[in-house]
């Protein structure tokens, strides 16, 4: 079913919206949750919660990209669950690794209070990146995809992916320092 039709089902308050979402994006959302949690059982719960969050969000929301809209809900739910139970339970997931890597980009000296300002900075930064580097960065830190899978999807070596990610992180670090974030 087309995305616009699925969104329309949500707006008409028809429960088949959930069925269609699960059919079309169940695997996609599971992959995201599993990247973060590395646990089939917990991932499934997050994905099930995703449809109900979506049900509550539409209307009024009318997403322009349903996949990303649903994926973002799953991502947030999975990260919340990760934080709740921490890494002792989800030791094999990518979240701890991603957090360590992102820790290279941002200082902890002064706590961030203005998330909206940070979001604007990140948007500007991502827009400034070459298309390929942006794609690799978001596969890693939006989807929290393992480096090996990113490499496979893009027909690159893991080394090349790591190198590009390292360079983008260095650039982000310089940019955030220059903007006085976290220092």
């Amino acid at each position, binding site marked *: 079913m087309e995305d616009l039709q699925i969104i329309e089902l949500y707006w008409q308050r028809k429960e088949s919206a959930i069925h269609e979402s699960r059919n079309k*994006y169940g695997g996609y959302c599971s992959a995201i949750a599993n990247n973060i949690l590395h646990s089939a059982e917990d991932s499934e719960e997050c994905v099930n919660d995703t449809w109900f969050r979506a049900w509550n969000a539409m209307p009024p929301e009318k997403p322009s990209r349903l996949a990303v809209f649903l994926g973002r809900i799953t991502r947030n739910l999975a990260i919340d669950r990760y934080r709740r139970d921490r890494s002792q339970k989800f030791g094999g997931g990518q979240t701890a690794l991603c957090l360590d890597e992102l820790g290279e980009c941002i200082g902890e000296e002064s706590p961030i209070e203005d998330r909206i300002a940070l979001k604007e900075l990140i948007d500007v930064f991502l827009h400034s990146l070459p298309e390929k580097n942006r*794609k690799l960065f978001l596969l890693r830190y939006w989807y929290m995809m393992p480096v090996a899978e990113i490499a496979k999807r893009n*027909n690159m070596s893991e080394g090349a992916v790591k190198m590009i990610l390292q360079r983008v992180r260095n650039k982000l670090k310089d940019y955030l320092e220059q903007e006085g974030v976290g220092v």
Partner: protein
Amino acid sequence: MKNKEILLDVIGDTDERLVPELTAKKKKNSVLKWTALGGVCAAAVFACVTILPKTPVGKTVPTESSNGSANASAQDKAPSVVIGNKVAELLAEAVYPEMPQYPDETKITNWNELEPAIEEWNNARSALKDQPEGYQDGFDTFFLNSTKAFLNSSNGENYVYSPLSLYMALGMSAEITDGESRQQILDALAQSDIETLRSHSKSIWQANYSDDGMAKCVLATSLWTNSSAEYKSDTVNRLADTYYSSVYAGDPASAEYNKMFGDWLNTQTDGLLSDQVANLKLDPGMIMTLASTVNYSGKWIDQFSPEETEQAVFHAVGGDINCDFMNDQRDMYYYRGDHFSSVSLSLENNGHMKLILPDEGYTPADILNDAQAKELMLNSDDNYENGKFVNVTLSVPKFDVCSKIDLRDGLNSMGITNIFDANKSDFTPLTDTDSIFLSKAEQDSRVTIDEEGCKAASMTVAIYSGGVMPDENAEFILDRPFIFEIMSDSGLPLFVGVVNNPVQ
């Protein structure tokens, strides 16, 4: 909550149009081989500037012995020397900076081996790109003026012009002239003085140099001297040093010397212009010919799938024709000007190709004079006020276009006139021979693009079925005459052209 956790959250909230799709179809897998430079986007140009005396150079000028060594001929002799007496010889060979090859990933299985190799490659590349601030100053002015002078297409032919190649050829011409002749060239290049030009030319050369097995962008220059003429060694040395020139000497009437000349051009352009080179001969009476080439080759970051290529109609100036169109659907920046639209296709570590499609009712010539288009063509990144990240239905004709430009009229219109006039020219830095002038200045170019090259498999982003609002979609169908620009990784326009007929 720690800052790094907030950062992770905030990345999740980023502009959703930037987030790559995972549900898109995948292209057929195949092995990626970096070392095979394919013809995905290949371009080459040579510009030749021939300098003649008003009366032919004598054949009886006494010659000093030459040991064939460039350095010996260049540095150990009196200011005025005869630099060769053989039929054809290489006096000085340009020595390019060392550039490690990008490692062949198909042959390395151990990540521990790959990482240092990539690091070495990256360091060498960064060192070349790290040039003094302001080294591109003046290039914008030169680009706009010269594009106006050389790309005035209106007769239905394809036009290709390389600003960078001409810049280097003119830079060399400034070195061998003086007085008003030199000043006219400096003004056209928007350079304040010869020292600034030297510094900028060298930096431009280095910042744009790439020959690492993955991406190629080589600016090569050479001097073809007449072994019967006398030259001032300081000037010849400076040309060799500042412009990475090879220096040759010989008898321009001899077959050997002409073969050497043709071989050099073919080597520097990887044979892409061999038809044009075959028709090129040195003028037997020349004082010197300067040749400048740009050899460029790169691979699309997001390649086109050959399975999606289809024949379709291109509305050429002379009537409709059928040609192969490469098709895809992608999330990418889309620029909407008042009278044109534009997208950029990125090349692997080698800049990008900008495609500019005039709206119906406008010609490429109209758009080349459009202020918005000029600004766009000088901009090397995607942050345009009129740009938007949208899902683009892309259809690009495979093209292979050649062009020959006689530079004389265009150079005249840019104010360079004295060097063409034997009575006004001043070539004293090069030679004391009287009454010499620039008899010929031409540029031959060829640009070709396709979807293949190496058989890389890359994920096709997009093609998600109907999940975008209408204002998030754009069509970019290049089915009528359009403009392209190849911009180097350092942000300089290497080639700009008008495709009136993709298969002409």
